[in-house]
């Protein structure tokens, strides 16, 4: 197994070793060691929470650069619906698409159109689903990863259909390869991404097999180039193919509206998502049919690689959704045009979603139990202040790190103080002692008296 790729990473020079990120990481994946934050690759979900909370801007995301476009004969941009939200309420989305072409793409395939397809696939899946209880959308990659790491019992509840991004890549390549009569390998498809978790998903999926998306370029990287071009770009503009509900996937609640599922629960913000997943794992909310969970507040418009405030982005996207008209018989037309109903298997999610036992203490269960017992003992001796000064997010995490040999108890400043106090008392005791020759009232007496 190769080293796990992560989009989110630390810029060493900028990190001042504060404890802000370790406290806010939903999978306790970060420790501060030797004055720098360290991210545990197995636990990280690329949710981007640390990027948002770091005041020193020491967390960033690796994304693909526009220079990769030249590696392919023909390159297609796959803009996330959230991209449209970044340029104000008045901007014509077709101008945004035209600007993308001007930047160097040969063609566009809107991920909002892929979202229309994903809506169809979701509805079809739910119709055929045998398992009872809530089905969870797998469209947010950080939520999927969170489930793999922290809620493996819920993997079965994920809706195993391709994300809008993957649907778009698949169909874009299929069409272009037929139209241009060139092999699919010569066509590059690049997602214009609002979040680092998608970057990771694309990289990992490409490592494991062929994946219809070749790379992910961040919205913030192309934002300036698009904003500059939008006011003066001249027609022809690429036509917007997606329906308003497809575009609406860019903000939280969009999937529910698009799929029109009555008993739905919509949750956004990774800490809120964890809270809901805890309840689902406990068998609560069993009457819910569909759960739309997104790691970022506001949904994709709030992604860590977007430019605007999530709520302003949301307002812009909703203005666009409200302005556009819903095409009649959208899903019938999609099905007829793309023969979707007979190709459901081709749109199964990839790669496979498997549990990631990133919290396991030991491969061997009995050794793990011994370690768990030691943790309980160590945690009972720690102050319980959860201050984070030791570089672990809270006292229990420090206890776990101590038992795993990754920390020592005197990493706790209060523990250290206690030990110094004991030592100081001993020193004082010793300092009070003087040799018999110097002592007054020496009671040495002659033998026999």
């Amino acid at each position: 197994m190769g080293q796990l790729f992560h989009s989110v990473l630390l810029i060493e020079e900028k990190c001042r070793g504060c404890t802000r990120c370790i406290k806010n990481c939903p999978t306790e994946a970060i420790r501060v060691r030797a004055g720098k934050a360290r991210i545990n690759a197995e636990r990280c979900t690329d949710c981007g929470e640390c990027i948002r909370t770091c005041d020193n801007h020491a967390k960033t995301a690796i994304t693909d650069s526009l220079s990769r476009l030249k590696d392919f004969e023909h390159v297609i941009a796959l803009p996330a619906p959230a991209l449209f939200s970044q340029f104000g309420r008045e901007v014509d989305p077709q101008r945004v698409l035209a600007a993308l072409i001007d930047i160097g793409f040969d063609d566009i395939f809107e991920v909002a159109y892929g979202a229309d397809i994903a809506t169809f696939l979701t509805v079809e899946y739910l119709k055929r689903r045998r398992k009872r209880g809530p089905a969870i959308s797998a469209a947010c990659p950080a939520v999927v990863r969170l489930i793999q790491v922290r809620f493996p019992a819920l993997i079965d509840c994920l809706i195993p259909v391709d994300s809008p991004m993957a649907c778009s890549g698949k169909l874009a390549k299929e069409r272009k390869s037929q139209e241009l009569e060139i092999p699919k390998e010569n066509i590059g498809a690049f997602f214009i991404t609002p979040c680092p978790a998608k970057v990771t998903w694309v990289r990992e999926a490409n490592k494991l097999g062929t994946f219809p998306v070749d790379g992910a370029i961040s919205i913030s990287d192309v934002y300036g180039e698009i904003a500059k071009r939008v006011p003066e770009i001249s027609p022809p503009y690429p036509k917007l193919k997606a329906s308003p509900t497809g575009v609406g996937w860019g903000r939280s609640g969009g999937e529910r509206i698009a799929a029109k599922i009555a008993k739905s629960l919509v949750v956004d913000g990774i800490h809120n998502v964890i809270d809901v997943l805890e309840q689902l794992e406990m068998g609560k909310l069993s009457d819910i049919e569909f759960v739309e969970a997104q790691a970022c507040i506001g949904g994709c418009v709030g992604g860590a690689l977007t430019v605007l405030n999530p709520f302003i982005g949301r307002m812009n996207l909703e203005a666009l959704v409200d302005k556009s008209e819903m095409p009649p018989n959208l899903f019938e037309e999609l099905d007829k045009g793309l023969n979707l109903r007979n190709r459901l298997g081709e749109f199964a999610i990839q790669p496979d979603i498997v549990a990631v036992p990133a919290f396991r203490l030991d491969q061997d269960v009995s050794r793990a139990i011994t370690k768990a017992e030691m943790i309980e003992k160590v945690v009972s001796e720690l102050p319980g202040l959860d201050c984070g000064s030791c570089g672990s997010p809270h006292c229990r995490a420090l206890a776990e790190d101590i038992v795993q040999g990754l920390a020592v108890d005197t990493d706790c400043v209060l523990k250290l103080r206690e030990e110094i106090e004991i030592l100081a008392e001993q020193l004082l005791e010793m300092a009070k002692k003087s040799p018999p020759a110097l002592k007054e009232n020496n009671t040495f007496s002659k033998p026999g008296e």
Partner: protein
Amino acid sequence: MRLEYHVVGRDFQAAGGAAAKIKRTLRQIGIDAETARRVGIVAYEAEMNIVIHAYRGTVGIDILPERVNIYADDEGPGISDIALAMQVGYSTAPEDIREMGFGAGLGLPNMKRYSDELEVESQVGSGTSIRAVINLPTKEGS
């Protein structure tokens, strides 16, 4: 190993904390996800029963090689008719608690549903003791 937690009646802020800690440890030990989920549910319902109905109590688990024992002991009003309390939808939770979304009459039925063995003993005016067993899946093959 044993994990034991104190639970305070009517403390809805802390409610669910014991079950969450139990789930965390089970995940660390590497007990399979489905069994861990079942233990979590039973421990949660036991904890919530104390929060809703009792004055105080303890919830704990013993992790053994072949099973997990879950226990809960409380000082509280007790249950006068256990058979009735085991029925889905039967609840003696007061109105204010139901308004909070608890006390739907699923506590004991859920515990029964997710455990392999369940024993409930209660003395009216004194308290309730619950013992549940969840067997660990036997390793297939080898």
